[in-house]
């Protein structure tokens, strides 16, 4: 659906050249949700803006639905954009139009018949929970409300591709969830392809199929979300993923536990299948859970638990071996502190 190859975007300012996007290639299949994460200033927004050619890439090509956008004339480009919805980081609502008017604008752009517009707008307002703000002007809306208008606008023309630049970062968790659920629904039911920039890994985990990490304009890692979460390669990726899954345990907490600290990872099949309790019952070790969860990433369970094992070193060794044997991965984060063993 989207195919970017060797995209580069260089900003020229008076004194220096800033490389926003640096030779980035990626593919997003039809009906896929592609998440892009990275530090602030990594080039995420720049990349997204290259996709619908709001920013003309300095070099490289971008194909959407088979069309090489960089080769299109203005008219065709406009047609192509009707099928690419975009949600902006800074909303960019027309200040002089009501919520209704802002959404109707997008419909008019697509040439929707005037008499069909009101019903469609109502539908969209319902969708984002803003029916009661129909006649409010942007200046009278809270940040999250503005963002929701932006979302409704982007969805107005039932686009086949949706570009979201931090679409939920101004929203409370509940609204975020409902918006994500909505995106997921549109994705599943209508096959909407979504490219989504976010800094919340929870969002990636929740709805993305594929993901990429950007750093200094480059895409340093990309792949299936499940794979990336299960085995992040680049240090930056690990850092990001760690936020949701690998549970970096603060020193503070660790210092309270004297036993061996191990990370146990269950992939694919449903969780532990009693492995842990079996282990505890079979070997003379005591276990304390420090942290853990079964995450469903793209619907597949991934269980990661951090636990303290206390007992004779040999017993612990055996226990770990047993767990590994029962098809789980175990990583010893810290050996037991001798003093207490």
């Amino acid at each position, binding site marked *: 659906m989207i195919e970017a190859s060797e995209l580069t975007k260089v900003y020229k300012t008076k004194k220096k050249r800033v490389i926003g996007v640096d030779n980035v290639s990626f593919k997003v299949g039809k009906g896929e949700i592609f998440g892009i994460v990275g530090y602030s200033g990594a080039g995420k927004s720049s990349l997204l803006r290259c996709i*619908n050619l*709001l920013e003309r890439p300095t070099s490289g090509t971008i194909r959407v639905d088979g069309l090489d956008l960089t080769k299109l004339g*203005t008219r065709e480009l*406009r*047609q*192509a*954009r*009707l*099928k*690419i919805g*975009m949600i*902006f980081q*800074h909303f*960019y*609502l*027309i*200040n*002089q*139009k009501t919520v209704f008017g802002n959404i109707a*604008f*997008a419909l*008019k*752009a*697509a040439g929707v018949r005037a008499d069909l517009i009101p019903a469609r707008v109502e539908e969209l307002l319902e969708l984002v929970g803003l029916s009661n703000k129909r006649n409010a*002007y*942007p*200046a009278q809306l809270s940040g999250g409300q503005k963002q929701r208008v932006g979302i409704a*606008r982007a969805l107005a*023309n039932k686009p086949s591709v949706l570009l979201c630049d931090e679409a939920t970062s101004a929203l409370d968790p509940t609204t975020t969830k409902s918006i994500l659920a909505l995106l997921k629904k549109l994705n599943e039911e209508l096959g909407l392809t979504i490219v989504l920039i976010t800094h919340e890994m929870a969002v990636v985990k929740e709805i993305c199929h594929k993901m990429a990490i950007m750093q200094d304009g480059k895409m340093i890692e990309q792949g299936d979300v499940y794979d990336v979460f299960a085995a992040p390669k680049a240090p930056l990726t690990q850092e990001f993923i760690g936020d949701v899954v690998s549970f970096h345990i603060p020193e503070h907490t660790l210092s309270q536990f004297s036993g061996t600290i191990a990370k146990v990872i269950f992939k694919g099949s449903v969780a532990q299948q009693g492995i842990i309790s079996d282990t505890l019952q079979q070997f003379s070790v005591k276990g304390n859970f420090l942290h853990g969860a079964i995450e469903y990433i793209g619907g597949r369970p991934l269980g990661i638990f951090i636990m303290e094992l206390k007992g004779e070193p040999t017993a612990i060794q055996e226990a770990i071996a047993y767990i590994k044997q029962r098809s789980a991965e175990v990583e010893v984060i810290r050996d037991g502190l001798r003093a207490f063993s």
Partner: protein
Amino acid sequence: MDFVHLVEMLPDMWNAFVETLLMISISTAVAIIVGFPLGVILFATDRGLFWENQLVQSGLGFIVNIVRSIPFIILLVALYPFTKALVGTTTGPIAASVSLSVAAIPFFARIVESSMREVDKGLIEAAIASGATPWMIIKDVLFLEARASMVQGLTLTIISLIAYSAMAGVIGGGGVGDLAIRYGHYRYDHTIMIATVVILIILVQVFQFIGDLTAKATDKRK
């Protein structure tokens, strides 16, 4: 003040008032009808915008500046044949309106242009991303967002036109300003001068008031 004289002149002042309104209305209308699209083109053909076209930009800009360069009286005379062809006469308020319009068009066009420059580029981008046509961007984004500022600029234009219309007396355009000059300047008739200036002040205040009110009423930002 000579009240008998003032009363005696009332019909003339009324006439002049009607003539001024006529000239202002016509030339304001023309300034809007021609100046607005011109301003939009000047704006939208600039670098990085949706009609980017350096040639049209500088060409039109040059013409606009030429018209603005020519002293009004010279413009009046230079436009003689054009005025004649257009309205069939070269004197009177209607003929004067032709020159006033020609003078007002580039003035207003520049105002439209610079008002639009103040519109957040992000809004234009969002509209472009929506697949909006240039026409929609102009109508629903640029026009609306720049409206309050353009209304203020229109007020400026109208008030300048009132000042300019005083010179329309040269071709018998009449109007309050002309009366002020003829009586105040040429005839040293202080009564009429003061009376006409008061009329002008009221006229300008009214336009400013309406302009301010409209600008505020149409502005939906805080």
